[in-house]
């Protein structure tokens, strides 16, 4: 079971969070023409990479904030966590 540092609440067990997928995905702007390819990339296509991955988690049984977690998908190592509006350098 992972141990995740919520930037708002501190270290919490994984059972308090729910997973939200790749954090690097950007939703196309509203009211903009979007090609099929662009839309498929947004909705479906994911890199599913091995290694360092920036992903979204929501602290559902805590502060309910969506956070960004930098995690190694192979080793589960968590490097850093960010608030939703924090820039990831």
């Amino acid at each position: 079971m992972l141990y995740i540092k919520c930037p708002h609440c501190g270290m919490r067990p994984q059972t308090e969070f729910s997973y939200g997928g790749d954090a690097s995905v950007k939703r196309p702007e509203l009211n903009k023409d979007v090609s099929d390819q662009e839309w498929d990339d947004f909705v479906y296509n994911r890199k599913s990479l091995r290694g360092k991955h920036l992903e979204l988690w929501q602290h559902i049984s805590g502060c309910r904030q969506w956070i960004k977690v930098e995690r190694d998908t192979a080793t589960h190592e968590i490097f850093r966590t960010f608030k939703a509006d924090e820039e990831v350098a």
Partner: protein
Amino acid sequence: MTQAFRIETGGLINREKKLSFKFNGKSYSGYEGDTLASALLANGVHLVGRSFKYHRPRGFFGAGVDEPYAVVQLYRNGETEPNIKATEQELFEGLEAKSVNCWPNVNFDIGAINNFLKIFLPAGFYYKTFMWPKSFWYRIYEPFIRKAAGLGVASTKHDNERYEHKYEYCDLLIAGSGPSGLAGAYAAAKNGAKVILAEDKPRFGGSLLTSDVNIGNQSGKDWAEGIIAELKTMSNVVVKNRSQIFGYYDHNMLVMSEKVSDHLPNTKKYHPNKRLWYIRAKEVLISSGSIERPIVFGNNDTPGVMLSSAAKEYLKVYGVLVGRNPLVFTNNDSGYETAIEFKKLGVDPIILDTRKNPASEIIDEAKNLGINIKNSYVVVAAQGYKKVKSADIASISDDKKQLGKIESIKCDCICVSGFWTPSIHLASQSGNKTKFKEEIDAFVPGQSKQNERTLGAANGVFSLEETLKTSFAAGSELSKKITENDNEVPVPNVVEKKFSQHDKFWCVPLPEGKNYKRFLDFQNDVSVSDVEIALREGYRSIEHVKRYTTLGMATDQGKTSNLNGLQLVSEIENKVVPAVGHTTFRPPYTPVSIGAIVGREVGKHSKPTRKSPMHNWHEKNNAVFVDAGVWLRPRYYKRGNENLFEASKREAKNVRTNVGVCDVTTLGKIDIKGPDAAEFLNRVYTNAWLKLPVGKARYGVMLREDGIVMDDGTTTRISENHYHMTTTTAQAANVLSHLEYYLQLVWPKLNVNVVSTTEQWAGAAIAGPKSRVLLQKLFPNSDVSNEGLPFMGYMEGDLFGVKARIFRISFSGELAYEVNVESDNGNYMWEKIVEVGEQFKIQPYGTEALSTLRIEMGHVAGSELDGRTIPYDNALEGLVSKKKDFIGKRSLQRAAFTAHDRQRIVGVVPLDKKTSIPEGSHLVKDANAPLPNPKLGHISASCWSVEHDNPFSLAILKDGKNMIGEKLFVMSPLKNKVIPVEIVSSHYVDPKGERVRS
């Protein structure tokens, strides 16, 4: 029975307390502090079971967790548990156990015929033979294997024992209470760290209980007792015996199984049987020790052949002689320690040492005691069927290839020592990449991956002095990092005997003309020849060899067999052992009872049951409840002898003719506030929201980004910047997360806040043609006329002194209202509605009638919004705005979603107007078409239409739009039904929707 093999004095058992027990129906006695194994051995019982494949007689091989043979079925406290190791089970008064793997009994076992048919059961036998002919599998092979195999019988009764889960956090978790664990724990505790020390055995001390050493001028055992006693007095320390850490998971989470009651005849009141600990540790010290390795020789599975360390443990801890005529077969000095213990009691052992000329302090001691030592000698084979009677021994050449002349010597046990294998399981589970240590022919932990450190014998360090030094240092250093205390703990001086180099010899060659079985894996009956076959057949990877031969796959996970298996593969393949590599160590380290894993999650879920404020009223009025997620909702209100069908029909009919009231508290409610709330809703829902006036409600549909309908419900504009959203009961939590996702991540600039208010409001739906006159009586000061409160209107009112929200919305398709009050007033509201409604023949209705009403109206719900349908499929495309953008809109342009024959909701009526249609059935064109019969659609929901008095269903049907009037068949292979049906409009009642506006 006398305990003929119990020595007069000595051991750590309590001779004051005699216990009686039964094994295979026979009565014996033992002492408090015995294990079942030691008590049986004290009574001279060596035959405890039969092996898995050949049903050969099996005795005891070890004295603890590594035991491969002595697995028994235990009867305790009215329950039975399989797969119990006799070497771990503590004796209690009245214990009963039976052998497994034997039929009809352990002395005469029909399955032993496999032993003589061995030629038919080589590696891969099951794969090759039982696969053909295929039809034989179910009828002949499988029943045969099931009868013959197995490690006991699981109870089919309800388990009355309690099992607990516990979550714990600590600075240092220490696995094992041998010298290394004690030293590490003590040093860390002295620095004020929060320490948990776990020992799987009942007694603390590990190897110190049996070894002949001195620490700080006292015996190792006394030193251990002193340390434990002091640790127990410290408030920052938890010491736990009977507690096995069996799994090392991510982020330093370890799981431990504590046997709370297994050593007692009955579980104490309020105590669990077992307790599972989830421990998050900042640092972990793995002090799990090592397990002695066997040397492989002919018939090495005969009862009476056991590890030399086990023989020593039975002697020193339990005061039991495993034989009066012992033969010690060793390639290192450990065997001498065992021999010396025998000799001290006046028993004359013979030592066969594979080494030519070993010299050390301990060997000198053995010589001085006059022990008969034969160098360059091996056991070729054990002789005796149910118990060792003699051994064939021979000298061996220096290159260990040639055996000398074979002699037979009498003995009643053979104590084997092939050196030591560090227990690296936990370290390996943590992700540590292990490395091979040449000097000890075994793997040890390499670079740590998590915050773990392996110390002492588990790390391949067999010197006590070195172990204590490194463990004290590790305990101090790691705790200092956490507590910033630096209390020095002096390392005590150690007196121990130095060992000489062991011999790498591990397998005795077969003598000319003999074909003895030489076992590697004692529990799964995997022999040297099995591994040879696997390699001959082309299996190369050690993982494949393992699966093909089942080497190391038994419940002991190859604790005694793995390394010898690797040695063999490396010899045949002519590779060094590290190049062969080892198989992956996976949790659990030792079998954990299912009850402990399940914990309290048995029977009904342990989440709090959610009840509406009107729950007591429902109960008093004969409601029959149904689980709706974690909520309990009335399904129907029983009158007299009514069944579900009759009651729900009555309730639904009363809504259509008079007025009904339904508890809708469980609906999800979300409060939405902020200047950008309208804009936000406009993006979330498919329809337009910018122009909804204050005091109006609107029905909305929301999609996921992939175009699939996520949820539907009404949202009301309470004031300028304040909305009240409702969701379905099932999707309430998901919708809230969905909204939060967009507000926090996608459109953070929108000034909107959302919060769940599901539990803040109690809700009652009042539905039926008489609902308005009732409402007028409930709110005499409000204008609830069709003009004052039109369809989809909203107002606040005063319900006999209680503030209420009144929504004119309808799920039933009738003229209907929903009244909300603060939860605390819910029951008051409900009672008032029922009291005043009596004159209009009001009846409460449950979820079953609610379903009936919505189905015959063609209103969609969860069974249609099933995560596979888009708005069009549900005839909701009218709510999809063409002008504005919203979540998921772009996906609706996908080819499949715009296909001309796209699936769509329809109504289904059986031609005979009588036969009920099972939900989930398929719709087909031709009932007699060959399989697989092309499926055109499925029945999503069924009811008995109270309006038409015949069965009616909703279905999602391919090209549904053009299928109205078609005749199809409903097929339900599950219910074995074929029903001819007609496809009709999904709006079976009031298709123009006039009633809701009336």
